[in-house]
């Protein structure tokens, strides 16, 4: 499998890009040239220079530093959202798919209800209900997305639950925990990895959207969506301030989307039509 991964150019390129971005975010204090929060009002809207490689924003803060520090909330929150979504969705999907009967009925009807709401409206409703904070944005995103995962995972589990090795386990009375964790979870793990990597892109956009609207990460924390929000007032006079976080979002989200496709090809060679 490693061999196949290394031969797949898109997979290698996107995974290394994402890893690189993550590393830059982790080591932000050593890489960023300036303090992202330090204002230098005299030098506001400064063009490229040695001190400020990408110029400064409306408060004279270093754009490059803000972008580098911005990786932390943007990527970190997106990954956190996906982890929450997968945990909740996988648990519900496993229970519904494996035990069937009334458990499945209850879970799937809740899922149907969740899926019948437009997702953006649900996010706004949850954030409005719980108050504006980063924590609530994550809760809102997990809340609308888990149903989707529960449904996907249930289908995967149902495919495997009647395979002979699961039937054997049930015949000899292997504990349910073992069947679920050792047989079923690994069987659906690759599908799950693909779905999750595709959806990290979605989570980034969603969190940035909420921050742009002022409902997510609050100023002065550097977050790419929030940076766009600050930049929109000076869009014509200082376009750099908007272009920098804008391009960063586009590149990272595209990388995640391409990575999802590439991982699917790597993990499941049957899907590739050649």
């Amino acid at each position, binding site marked *: 499998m490693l061999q196949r991964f290394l031969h797949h150019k898109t997979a290698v390129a996107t995974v290394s890009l994402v890893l690189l971005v993550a590393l830059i975010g982790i080591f932000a204090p050593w890489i960023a040239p300036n303090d992202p929060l330090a204002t230098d009002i005299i030098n506001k809207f400064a063009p490229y220079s040695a001190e400020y490689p990408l110029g400064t924003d409306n408060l004279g803060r270093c754009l490059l530093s803000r972008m580098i520090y911005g990786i932390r909330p943007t990527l970190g929150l997106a990954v956190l959202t996906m982890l929450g979504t997968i945990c909740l969705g996988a648990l519900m999907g496993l229970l519904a798919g494996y035990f069937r009967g009334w458990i499945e009925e209850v879970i799937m009807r809740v899922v149907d209800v969740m899926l019948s709401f437009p997702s953006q409206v649900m996010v706004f409703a949850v954030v409005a209900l719980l108050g504006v904070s980063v924590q609530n944005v994550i809760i809102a995103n997990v809340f609308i997305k888990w149903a989707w995962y529960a449904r996907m995972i249930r289908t995967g589990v149902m495919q495997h639950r009647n395979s002979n090795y699961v039937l054997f386990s049930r015949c000899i009375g292997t504990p349910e925990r073992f069947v679920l964790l050792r047989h079923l979870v*690994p069987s659906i793990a690759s599908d799950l990895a693909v779905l999750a990597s595709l959806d990290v892109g979605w989570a980034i956009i969603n969190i940035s959207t909420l921050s742009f609207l002022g409902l997510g990460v609050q100023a002065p924390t550097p977050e790419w969506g929030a940076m766009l929000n600050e930049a929109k007032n000076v869009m014509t006079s200082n376009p750099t301030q908007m272009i920098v976080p804008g391009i960063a979002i586009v590149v990272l989200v595209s990388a995640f989307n391409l990575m999802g496709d590439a991982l699917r090809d790597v993990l499941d060679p049957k899907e590739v039509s050649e």
Partner: protein
Amino acid sequence: MIPMIEMQNICVSFRSEQQEKVFGASRKQVLFDVSLSLPKGSCLGILGESGSGKSTLGRVLCGLLKPEKGQVLLDGMSVYRSRQGKRALQNRLSVVFQDYTTSANPRFLIRDVIGEGIRARQRREGIALNYEKEVTRLLDLVGLEASFAGRFPHQLSGGQLQRVCIARAVACKPELILFDEAISSLDTHTQVQIMDLLKELKERLDLTYAFITHDLTAVTYMCDNVLFLYQGRVTEQIAVERLAETKDEYALRLLHSIIDFEA
């Protein structure tokens, strides 16, 4: 002889895929009034063509499918009536399936495949077994080298993998093993090898076999009794030695087809 496991008037039906009405609940009956008994130490062949309900009967026998009517008795205790009954069946029964490609989890090493059976035995008897030693012993029992333990299922041939499945079935120290078409998907030569192995294991471990198949030759080779299943009904139950005296139409047809084939 006291039967070890007994099935009384089993009826099973499934909800039809195509319903005449929108919320229709018409059902298709698969098993009609099936009764059988399996004495300890015997080998019963359950013979039937495709769609005769023999695999469904196997599911009922190994505790996976609750019949609508009738009961399964294990030493006089009803299996589906209570949790204890089911537990008792799980502790004494093991199973080998037809399709060996899906019988073992493709992500498990052979060691772990057999390990699942060993773990079931440890749990039941409350003892700690030497894992490596036990795997080696079981592999040796089915005629495989110890080096197979570190391989994946797809790195084994069909016959080898079926032997692994038998080792796994034996690992949990059952008294009764159900073979659901366990040898049908192997070639003739391997079939004979596996059947010889099964005969030997039966003697050594004092096992009882239930053998589901569509292959009359295999039944005459292995079993003491044959039960003919035709369209969900038991048409005849007869000892193998008296097979020639059968009056049953389906059995006769099968017998003739074999004779034709050999002639």
